[in-house]
């Protein structure tokens, strides 16, 4: 009971300064860090350092393989402000995963190599059939995979630097109904599907000025995901098929830059605290444009304003070592949405949010470890979209339990 009280106290003290960047960012990386509110830039805990701070990976003493998955159960609902009618999503379970491998030629070597494969962005939103916003969106599926080979170098016992090259590969599938009906009462439907890729990097510095305090500074670059060869498919009444020719389209989706300043603090031998401050360059997502190869008077290129704004994000958490092999984590985060009023869409009915996180980890012997975490958050946002006039309140509840297996050798 003693340690429980400590943890609760800790959380209460730290609540005011938790932030977390949102949009379609997933931010599920490393079970321990997830359990600590998503903070970890200045703590070298495991291979997830490849993501959180490549400059810190060189401080890992052993080789490590770390594979985790975090199923995301998200349910959104919409209350139409004009009609009092409601609709819900029936989105499938999201499965963000993260795998990290860190290797050195010797355990003591200053140079470490790593490979991280993870899904930093993406979600699938599927609204119920015939919902009142179906002409704005019925389904959005976005999957982005990052492949990040990384080098991390320990300059001295207090300072490490590291950088990773990012190759990004993604898939997008956007669907909506078209308000044209055939003689059987069927509405038209548009499906835009494409693959995208982009390049970027992830670099960081790790610094330990004292035995208790550590500082991390990282920069993850913007990645411009370009859809070059997308396929647009239209199902419309036969007499209008010439107006909606199936064909190619191009589009792009910028994934924002993220700069993070993190602090780690060894409060006691058993208690680690972490605080991360993110700057997320969401402003780059100003427009969602589709450029169709075959334009007609009915099928014009579209440019939808998104006008995201840059956001700051803070995350914080604590890790308590209960026994030599067993630890527990708690964390919280408060995030300001990048989506401005008038621009909330059913794709990402985003809002300011508080994340609650917790987790446990256990060493089975010296080489094998399991970490588990859970994240819960609830969102609420009322808006009238200036493009579609869809007006009402979105609510979203998210619960994301995750588990990771680590092999250390």
């Amino acid at each position, binding site marked *: 009971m003693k340690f429980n009280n400590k943890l609760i106290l800790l959380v209460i003290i730290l609540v005011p300064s938790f932030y977390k960047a949102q949009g379609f960012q997933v931010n599920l990386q490393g079970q321990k860090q997830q359990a600590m509110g998503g903070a970890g830039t200045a703590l070298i805990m495991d291979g997830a350092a490849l993501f959180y701070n490549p400059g810190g990976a060189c401080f890992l003493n052993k080789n490590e393989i770390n594979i985790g998955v975090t199923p995301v159960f998200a*349910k*959104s609902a919409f209350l139409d402000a004009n009609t*009092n009618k409601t609709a819900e999503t029936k989105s499938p379970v999201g499965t963000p995963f993260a795998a990290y491998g860190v290797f050195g030629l010797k355990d003591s070597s200053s140079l470490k190599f790593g490979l991280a494969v993870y899904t930093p962005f993406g979600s699938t939103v599927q609204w119920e059939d015939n919902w*009142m916003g179906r002409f704005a969106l019925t389904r959005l599926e976005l999957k982005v995979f990052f492949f990040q080979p990384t080098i991390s170098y320990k300059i001295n016992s207090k300072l490490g630097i590291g950088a990773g090259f990012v190759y990004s590969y993604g898939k997008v599938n956007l669907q909506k109904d078209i308000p044209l009906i055939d003689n059987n009462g069927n509405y038209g439907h548009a499906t835009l599907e494409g693959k995208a890729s982009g390049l970027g990097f992830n670099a960081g510095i790790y610094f330990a000025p004292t035995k208790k305090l550590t500082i991390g500074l990282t920069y993850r670059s913007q990645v411009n995901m370009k859809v070059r060869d997308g396929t647009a498919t239209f199902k419309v009444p036969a007499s209008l098929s010439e107006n909606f020719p199936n064909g190619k389209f191009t589009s792009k989706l910028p994934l924002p830059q993220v700069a993070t300043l993190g602090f780690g603090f060894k409060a006691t031998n058993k208690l680690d605290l972490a605080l991360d401050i993110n700057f997320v360059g969401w402003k780059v997502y100003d427009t969602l444009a589709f450029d169709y190869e075959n334009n007609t008077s009915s099928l014009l290129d579209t440019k939808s304003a998104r006008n995201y704004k840059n956001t700051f994000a803070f995350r914080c958490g604590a890790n308590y070592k209960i026994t030599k092999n067993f630890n527990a984590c708690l964390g919280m985060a408060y995030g300001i949405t990048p989506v401005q009023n008038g621009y909330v869409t059913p794709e990402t009915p985003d809002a300011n949010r508080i994340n609650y996180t917790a987790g446990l980890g*256990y060493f089975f012997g010296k080489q094998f470890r399991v970490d588990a975490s859970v994240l819960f958050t609830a969102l609420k946002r009322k808006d009238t979209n200036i493009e579609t006039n869809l007006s009402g309140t979105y609510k979203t509840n998210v619960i994301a339990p995750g588990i990771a297996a680590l092999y250390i050798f």
Partner: protein
Amino acid sequence: MKRKTNSFLPITFLIPLTIGIMIGCKPKFDIPTPDNGSVDASRYVAIGSYITAGYADGALYYEAQSVSFANLLAEQFKLIDGGNFNIPFVPQNSNGVSVIAGNTISINAKSTLVNKTDCKGITALGPLKLNPTENYGFFSANIYNSSAPFNNLGIPNTKIFHVAFKGYGDVANNPSGNFNPFYQRIASNFATSSILSDAVNQNPTFFSLLIGSEDVMGFALSGGISDTITPLSRFNNHVDTIINNLTKNGAKGVVGNIPDISSLPYFTTIPYNGLTIDQAQADQLNSLYTPLGINITFTVGSNPFVIIDTAANFFGFRQMSENEYILLNVPLDSVKCYSYGSLIPMPNKYVLTANEISLVQTAIANYNGKLSAAAQLKNLAFVDVNSFYKQIKTGMVYNGISLNAQFVKGGVFSLDGLQLNPVGQALLTNEFIKSINFMYGSTIPQVDVTKYKGISFP
């Protein structure tokens, strides 16, 4: 071993915890209960013409009747304890019924959108009238039921002075223009009752009144060659009569004004300069018209149509000007292939000249002034239907659906180019609901327009 088991136990706790939270994960809303304010919707009657009746695509038919704004409003009233709303439905499988002017033998049916090949062999989408499934006897079969009187008293083609006309259902009044077979069908007594008396006899607690368009439309739809525009003083008197009678027992209600004809695709679809010709055709027309010396010239591309206007000059024809309308019922094949509007001046009945438009628009503006003043005088809710139609003409977006007043494409008007399709009726219903809520402090929810259809395409 003991230590390991104890320590691992909390991890297994996460699983049921997670499942538990997931079950409670579904977001919930506190949906407000609709408040009736000072509206008593227990006996609602609707007085009006085409729109109130639910007339669309050139006929009265079941599906269109069921989505008339009056019926949709009555459906929403049920959320605040509204009563039954009886509608004089035509049979569900009917192609619809419409009167052919002055004809007491045959009837018209609704139009549907089909691919049509014109005289030049070009295939395009256009409305086609279906064959009637009823004969004229349909109208004389009276369906009035004293135990369930009709709440929807929208009678297509009703002018304001017809509302209180006793015997409006009597064919004997046909020669004087005061007979309507749609009313004959539902009158409590075809020879002695009026629409108004049938309404008042139900002792309504609430009414809607949307009338006045037909007082100019007879004139406008004839191209200004027949029928007369109801004089303002007569219009005003009848507005007072109707509203005084409906409110005499304290009923509340909602009054709408009427749309200007510039908002209706029937008048705006065919451009005044829709005569598209090549150089050879222009030369030929110029060689014929130039010698007349009446300033009619043609160039390559689009040209104003030539129309009959006896006042224009000695020859009695001229080219149209930008602010004049060609009506949607002009035979397009005659225009495309048989020189209507070029070699053969367009007949008067298909054209509204600037003078005629001015007469119509002045009358509409005056009627609208009266309708709003009358509503205000009796503290009734008022719907600026005219502004609503103008908003549609400008273009609007509803839940991601782009809508405007274009014929067929615009998504709001039916295939007759005058009346609304179900989407338009649903939008109009919401205008009524907004006004009622504003005036009477009620919180009646609007209808979900996305549940209603536009025009069906083959």
